[in-house]
């Protein structure tokens, strides 16, 4: 350790240098890291990204997924990502903006994906979450349901489930709930 200052001298210097120093916009560690994630994004052709708040605010963005196979083929699903200042210490908050009939996404847009909560780990990235979301559409999991009814139908009668998904994406009713058209 060294002697950091003779206080009087330091104050004088600080007053002098403060005049010439331009204010610098501070960037949080979370922003720095998400910059890395975004600059290395490798999006499949079924996926796109947009930045509603411009190119210099990467903490909030939207991911649009258009599955090209599986139950949800042809649908368009938008997810909002909210990234905290201490990312990647905390997982991004991800919500589905599109109302969807899905065993692992509830009608309020909460998403049950392990890496968004209990299995989040700082070595994961925005890319990993996008893969996870894509996977949810390819292989909905009836054993970990957030939409109980949808899960039950998928388990008991996959053909019926398929019909329900089609009907919901076309803008119809399933089980008394209306789903906006997303095809």
């Amino acid at each position, binding site marked *: 350790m060294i002697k950091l200052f003779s206080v009087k001298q330091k104050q004088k210097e600080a007053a002098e240098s403060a005049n010439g120093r331009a204010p610098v916009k501070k960037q949080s*560690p979370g922003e720095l890291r998400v910059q890395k994630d975004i600059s290395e994004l490798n999006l499949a052709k079924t996926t796109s990204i947009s930045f509603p708040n411009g190119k210099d605010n990467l903490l909030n963005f939207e991911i649009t997924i258009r599955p090209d196979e599986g139950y949800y083929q042809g649908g368009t699903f938008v997810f909002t990502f909210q990234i905290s200042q201490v990312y990647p210490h905390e997982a991004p908050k991800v919500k589905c903006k599109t109302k969807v009939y899905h065993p692992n996404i509830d009608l309020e847009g909460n998403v049950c994906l392990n890496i968004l909560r209990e299995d989040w780990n700082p070595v994961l990235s925005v890319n990993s979450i996008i893969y996870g979301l894509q996977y949810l559409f390819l292989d909905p999991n009836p054993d*970990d349901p957030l939409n109980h009814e949808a899960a039950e139908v998928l388990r008991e009668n996959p053909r019926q489930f398929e019909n329900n998904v089609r009907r919901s994406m076309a803008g119809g009713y399933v089980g008394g709930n209306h789903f906006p058209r997303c095809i």
Partner: protein
Amino acid sequence: MKKRKGEDEPWAPEPEVMAETTDIEGRWRDLDRLLLRPGILVGPGFEPGIDTRDMIRNDCRVLVIGAGGLGCELLKDLALTGFGNLEVIDMDTIDVSNLNRQFLFRMRDVGQPKAKIAAERVMERVKGVNVVPHYCRIEDKDSSFFDQFQIIVLGLDSLEARSYINAVVCGFLEYEPDGSPILTTIKPMVDGGTEGFKGHARVIIPGMTPCFQCSMWLFPPQVTFPLCTLAETPRSPAHCIEFVHLIQWGQDRTGETFDPDNPEHMKWIYEQAAKRAEQYSISGVTYSLTQGVVKNIIPAIASTNAIVAATCALETLKIATMCSKGMEVFMQYTGTDGVYMRTFQNEKDPNCIVCSAGVPVEVEATTTLQKFIDVLLKDSRFKNKISKPSVSLQGENLYMQAPPILEEETRPNLLRPLRTLMGGEGGILNINDKRLKGILRVQVIFKTTDVDMDTAGGG
């Protein structure tokens, strides 16, 4: 002397006892033992004498961030230690549940800003100390506010706030081209933290000891439950509470934002969670557990705060005066098993994205961003480490390789000179590349030989 004894504070001592200590003989006796005598345990450059005491009394300005459990202790300790110019910043108001340990506050203060009352109380009790309160968020102050202080002491309860203030304070740090920190740009921080019976105190000298970000990864992740477990197979009272908090609120109270400080909201969560618990034959949902789970509260222990704050105040004194060598980086206290404390020295992350010097790269100020990227690609120090770099300056993305939408938007910058993009004095650029594990910090130094006339003389 009159005894000021309110009905809400029958235990209150007579404040006058301490108030007149300015003139009491021996007020500085203990401090003088440390400051007036040379010794073998002193820090480098220690100057024993009355001037040092006057210095902390009159010239040294200390900012305390947080006026809660730790903040009250810190303000009291620093004021009694002899620091004469204190400021305190806190965004909270006093709640009745604070009174058991935040001893500067009384029942009649409930609802008042913590910073304001804490400042008043300390000035009432300790004569000759000036405490300036700031009732606002730390984000409301610009960096010049923080730059006024010689030492910043943190009594915070969140990683976010620590991380934020760490980035601000490390932002003052500048390095010489040889990578050594410029001493006048170093602003030391002393960080205290408590959680129940556990606590820590650490000294952060940016550029010399690890900053908060260097060891961020040591913090354990927050406990979260899988949403589907909450929805389908709740097994504990916490599961029931989290279900109502995270899922049922959105279903039943659509459009209302949940506010953990609104008692009606909290009561609703508690009642619904109790119902859910009954459905699943789970016992143990209480109002205080609901608060604990939702607000992530761990009961605060007054003695932990006192021990940690005392350590922080002492380290602040050491940094300010060098009357003793400072603590080597980090102290941990575990009050559950006796009074075990240990200190250890963790290391700086040489590539820390907040406090490291960055790799110096010297170029002309007129170099375009594209040419600069070419320079980096040719630089042997980065060989095989970068192939398609993205470049950003503080909050601004100068060039992004992906996704295409950002690449297109930032492409025009490639033809702009660095001087235009980052100002005439150079600075730190962040480089991202798939081949890099982390973020590469590059310190851009403009060659001084060829400075154009219009930027010369800026000094």
